[in-house]
């Protein structure tokens, strides 16, 4: 077949991938730089609804999810901040959904048309109690396609909100692409409770995930509950069963991490330095690696795509290198701090930027000049 090229952007890929994977409802509130996702969704999703604000967005998504739908939204930090209480509700109710967070420069309304990677702390800290929520990060157009489908799959299989992290430069920059070369996406198969035995909405099933039944059923009573509840979904203060149920919500995310650990690891024989980067900066890192190797330097590259929970594998890989350079477009090195705390071990340094993209040259220079700018 002849090559068929379209000139497009990752917003289009993400929306098409989400629908092909089985997402069927998009609820949106306009916000720059997520508006292309909103637009494409209005042209593609079986159900599209404009919400009057981001709290309502998450509530509508939760309502749809309670009837068996798989909703998606796209927002940026200001909208995400409004959604947090409702994301906690959906997490507690075990409702599948994908929230695409297109990062832009903050704080507050910041600069709406400038990219950033500054929301990792708020995203990984979304759930009260320190509980884990899956955070998947897109690093190039292929990721926009494959990882969006993965996010839908994780949301459905683990019955949880999933955050798909991207940024302005990723979803608004156009590029040429042959859509026929994209890997086919399988629609996620959804298991529901089929037995005639009494239904316990929060009884752990396989992988600690309860089988789903929506409020559209006429076979069993279904309860969805945001407050601490037992396996029947009845509010309890702090009984062992109810607390155990809340803890299970965290465990199903962490104990099933292997099923959604996505990363790219580009090794090189003899390399002493490892560059770690994600999101928009991963592209600069790829280019820096190509240039360094071209100059005869040995260097390896790790691109975490599943950012959170943090797979142990990342620590295994990083421990093989005396020098680790973590590049991300925020002021303080949010992922570096998540990985190592504020006091990173000797040999681990960051390349950071605020209000501008990190260049391949900055990453190269940190690899070559390692140690001069430990922060």
């Amino acid at each position: 077949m002849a090559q068929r090229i379209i000139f497009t952007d990752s917003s289009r890929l993400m929306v098409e991938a989400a629908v092909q994977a089985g997402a069927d409802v998009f609820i949106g509130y306009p916000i720059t730089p997520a508006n292309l996702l909103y637009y494409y969704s209005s042209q593609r999703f079986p159900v599209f609804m404009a919400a009057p604000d981001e709290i309502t967005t998450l509530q509508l998504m939760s309502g749809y999810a309670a009837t068996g739908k798989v909703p998606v939204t796209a927002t940026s930090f200001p909208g995400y901040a409004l959604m947090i209480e409702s994301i906690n509700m959906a997490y507690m109710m075990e409702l599948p959904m994908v929230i695409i967070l297109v990062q832009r420069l903050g704080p507050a309304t910041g600069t709406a048309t400038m990219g950033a990677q500054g929301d990792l702390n708020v995203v990984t800290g979304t759930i009260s109690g320190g509980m884990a929520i899956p955070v998947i990060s897109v690093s190039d157009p292929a990721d926009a396609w494959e990882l969006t489908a993965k996010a839908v799959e994780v949301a459905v299989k683990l019955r949880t909100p999933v955050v798909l992290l991207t940024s302005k430069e990723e979803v608004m920059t156009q590029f040429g692409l042959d859509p026929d070369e994209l890997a086919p996406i399988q629609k996620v198969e959804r298991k529901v409770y089929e037995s005639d035995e009494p239904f316990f909405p929060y009884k752990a099933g396989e992988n600690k995930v309860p089988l789903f039944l929506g409020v559209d059923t006429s076979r069993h009573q279904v309860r969805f509950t945001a407050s601490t509840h037992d396996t029947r979904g009845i509010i309890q203060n702090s009984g062992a069963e109810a607390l155990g149920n809340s803890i299970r919500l965290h465990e199903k995310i962490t104990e099933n991490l292997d099923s959604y650990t996505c990363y790219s690891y580009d090794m090189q024989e003899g390399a002493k330095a490892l560059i770690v980067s994600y999101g928009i900066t991963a592209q600069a890192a790829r280019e820096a690696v190509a240039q360094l190797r071209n100059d005869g330097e040995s260097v390896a590259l790790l691109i975490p795509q599943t950012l959170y929970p943090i797979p142990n594998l990342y620590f295994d890989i990083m421990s093989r290198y005396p020098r680790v350079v973590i590049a991300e477009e925020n002021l303080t090195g949010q992922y570096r701090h998540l990985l190592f705390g504020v006091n990173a071990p000797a040999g681990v340094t960051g390349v950071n930027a605020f209000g501008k993209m990190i260049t391949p040259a900055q990453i190269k220079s940190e690899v070559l000049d390692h140690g001069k700018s430990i922060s």
Partner: protein
Amino acid sequence: MERVYLKEEGLPFCKGCGHTTISENTDKALQKLGIPLLDVILVTDIGCHGIIDKSFKMHTVHGLHGRSVALATGISAGLSNPDKKVIVFIGDGGVTIGIQHLINAAHRNFNMTVVIHNNMLYGMTGGQPSEFTPQGFKTPTLPDGAGEKASDICAIISAAGASYVSRVIGIGDLSDHLAEAFAKPGFSLVEVMEICPSYGVKSNPGMKLSKVVQEAGLEIRVYADRNIPGPELLSESKFKSLFTGKIDIPVTHVSSLKSTVRIQVAGSAGEGVQSAAEYFAAAAIASGLNATKKGSYPVTVGIGFSASDVIISPDPILYTGSPVPDYLIITSDDGLAYAKGALAAMKEGTVYIDSSLPVPETKASVVTYAFREFAGSRNAALVGFLYLLKEAALYPYEALESRVAGRIGKTIG
């Protein structure tokens, strides 16, 4: 009457609380209408009324404070089935924090019935006043009484376009009132006036509920009875893949470009800068190259500068930031101001600038041309790209010209 929707056990509310009256009458009203148990979905809010879930046998959904109506809207839309009965229990506190959700759901007339348990204060947290505490009504935190008039939620929701709205006193048999609202299509609302036996009665000894309501100017009546069916939302998707349609770019030309080239174009909003850059990038793809394009402009897209960065390369393009361009096209004053940084950073390469503008200081070579005059200011950026192709031969001129022929109408020479 025997209970059908409620369990036989006692209800969890204080003695004398109107919440008990509402729950028992909800059971009775549903029985009168004969709605099958599992066709009813009860969505509750936060507040004393919200602990009722465990006493009901239909589907129950218990969410956040003030958000129950928005959550129920999603459920109603997701079911998209007028035979299912979505009922929301919410207090006056929940309405205070979430009034937009009621207005929105009423405005769009989603199938549901909202039952407001209005006891005129926050009962669960110690009796603080809400937007619905009548003037002069005392609460533990307002011993001298509320200073403002209570909001009239029935008037507000009626104005929003609800199908049915009524206010009743929460004493005695309410089942006919509730049944009437439950039976209406679209969005219906019943505000049930109550007095909190723990905080309202103690703070206002001897006060009669009906007198409080009357003195507050809140009428006991039907506010709206419009009988409007709710929206139908679910249908088979009419949409096809986002990869179909007229977006394919056939490769029709060949470029001999050997390395990556970065081009920045800087002009004014409304002068076709973004579309010109898109045409230029698409024509590069039609010449077998890789291309990326991104735009920069103020949030008010119709005024001020408009700039774009295009990268073309025979190799895959990874980093799409905009360091120093190899070629810079400037077509207007706005563009010249925007391009200041690039002009200073360019140590080599070429700047193409409209001949009406002052020649800028830069280490790059500067070429002037009448981009604005050639085919009008709306085509200035496009003419700039065509001129660049004539001068720099990055890929065949015809690849771009054939895409935009109708817009310029003459060849740049």
